[in-house]
């Protein structure tokens, strides 16, 4: 398939463009997403309202609950709505619709009705925007049966996974990391999709496995490069989707390296890394050479001052330190 280099922002835009072109039941709904309104705060929907019209790209009032609720209603009628919650920190306002309606619809009606919506939400971490505009809240959604949760780390994944999300028959929360939108990569130009639940080994290694996703991927790859120089071979697994979780790839990789470090930009305590670590321990009890380490955001709200924000979030140094501790840890099962 022909590939072109583009940013994640361009890849997301292309995925939306191709979905809108391919299927007239696809439409976008959200705040400030039309070209008149700037094509989205970070331009992901740029050009689409001009190309497909205001019936397919609907600008809405500031009404997150109604945006997601209306998307659900349209989906009940067979449409494939892509609703936007501008910044993930605002998603609490729509959580009732996502958790009590979208995720449960198929079950409560034994399949008579379904809600195949995609909810796009952007994470602003690491940009000095403070406590209510920087959160990675995917942990709230990982435990909602009926939902799927996606958080891509590269332009190619972003395009393939968003396409899958839009045409998936279940509701999907699709999280876009603004810090990564400018990242460039080769992306297949034509429509393609990446199945959910298939983690990607972005960097093979033999000594330790870093399990991560989203912003954690480039930061972990940076840490891995640094550790390479020290003779530590790090495998980096990009989960791509948290729900479903690709337990098989995680267990296969950690089974080989016998050491795992889970990296998230969400809080460490009570965040997504807890389920990942618990799963690893359940599958590999007695086979690990060190305790599963977890690197996550500190258990504090997110401060805007750069020095404080830097102290709150993980970074390649903190990731590398965790790897070093893990590799240095004494093995309890001979070898």
């Amino acid at each position: 398939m022909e590939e072109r280099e583009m940013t994640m922002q361009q890849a997301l835009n292309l995925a939306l463009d191709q979905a809108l072109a391919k299927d007239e039941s696809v439409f976008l709904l959200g705040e400030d997403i039309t070209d008149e309104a700037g094509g989205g705060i970070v331009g992901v929907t740029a050009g689409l309202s001009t190309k497909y019209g205001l019936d397919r790209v609907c600008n809405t009032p500031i009404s997150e609950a109604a945006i997601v609720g209306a998307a659900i209603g349209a989906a009940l009628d067979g449409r494939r709505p892509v609703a936007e919650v501008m910044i993930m920190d605002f998603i609490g306002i729509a959580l009732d619709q996502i958790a009590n309606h979208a995720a449960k619809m198929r079950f409560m009606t034994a399949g008579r009705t379904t809600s195949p919506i995609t909810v796009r939400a952007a994470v602003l971490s690491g940009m000095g925007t403070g406590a209510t505009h920087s959160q990675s809240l995917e942990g709230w959604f990982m435990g909602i049966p009926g939902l799927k949760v996606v958080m891509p780390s590269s332009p190619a994944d972003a395009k393939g996974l968003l396409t899958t999300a839009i045409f998936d028959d279940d509701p999907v929360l699709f999280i876009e990391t603004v810090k990564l939108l400018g990242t460039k990569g080769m992306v297949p130009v034509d429509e393609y999709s990446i199945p959910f639940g298939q983690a990607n080994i972005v960097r093979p290694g033999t000594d330790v496995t870093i399990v991560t996703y989203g912003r954690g991927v480039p930061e972990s790859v940076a840490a891995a490069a640094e550790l390479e120089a020290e003779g530590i071979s790090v495998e980096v697994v990009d989960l791509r989707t948290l729900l479903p979780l690709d337990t098989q790839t995680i267990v296969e990789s950690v089974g080989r390296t016998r050491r795992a470090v889970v990296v998230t930009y969400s809080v460490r305590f009570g965040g997504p890394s807890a389920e990942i670590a618990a799963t690893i321990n359940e599958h590999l009890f007695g086979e690990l050479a060190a305790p599963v380490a977890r690197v996550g955001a500190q258990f504090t709200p997110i401060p805007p001052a750069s020095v404080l924000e830097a102290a709150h979030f993980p970074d390649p140094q903190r990731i590398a330190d965790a790897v070093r501790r893990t590799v240095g840890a004494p093995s309890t099962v001979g070898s």
Partner: protein
Amino acid sequence: MAATKTASARAVPTEADQKRMFELMVIMKLTDDRLAKGISSGEFLAIYWPHRGQEAIPAALGAVLRPSDHLVTTYRGLHDHIGKGVPVSAIFAELLGKETAPGKGKGGTLHLSYPEVGSMLSTGIVGAGVPVGVGLALSAKQQGLDRVTATMFGDGASNTGSFHESLNMAAVLNVPVVFVCQNNLYGEKTPVEETMKVATVAERSAAYGMPGVRVDGNDPDELFGVLSEAVDRARSGGGPSLVECMTFRFRGHSFGDNMKYIPPEQLAAAQEKDPVPAYARRLVDAGICTGDEIADIEAAATATVDAAVTEAMAAPAPSPDHLRDHVYADDRGMPA
């Protein structure tokens, strides 16, 4: 004030419409009566939110809407489903949690849906169905269909943020939806005067630049006219409107409610205006039905409800083996 406006020339139900409305009202009433009896006697293990007293509203809506139109309602929506054409047998099966229920024991009273006849959603979250109705209407508009969505909710729901966001969005997007408020004067056990300072829910439509009207929820003919006007407006591209129907819950909030909080005289006055016998009298007085025809309709409704009960009671309970069905389109790879 929008709420006091009366329409120019309102649609009048034909005799066929009137008979149909009465038939529906009787089935609705007998369904509630049968549930009350069955639960009290221990025959049924079920929970429900009685609609008894509110029959005229969905009966009229049922006569006004087309089969292809959509309905969104609430936990207190069994009468609404019957008005839209949901089989009574499906309702009893759902409430009794049987394998034969539309939800196969996974929905329940709060969550009955029956898209086969356009009953798209019941929700147990107050106010949360309102934006879903907006989305159904948006879908119709996007597809150029002349389909209308009617969304039912209560007086208390009009205080939720969801109501506000939804009516505003419906007005801005100009979608074919009719917001039908069944104002029964209480939200759970709190009287409406305690939760809003305005005299009517209807006048709230003004905040969205949308017509709003209050109507006697006990008068099927009046309701037919007012609802027809709102439905026709929506169908012809005139946009959304709000219709407030004044009514009362004869059996309180949820079945078993002691109704201590309801002044006896208020309840008595409401029961005086019981829409079902009142409409029977009107049809007879107007020579539209004979007393025998009324009796036949009641007998037929009783037979329908009895048959539904018999069928539901005989139906098997769902098998635990099916618990994990219908969580996802494809369960492979999903957590246990």
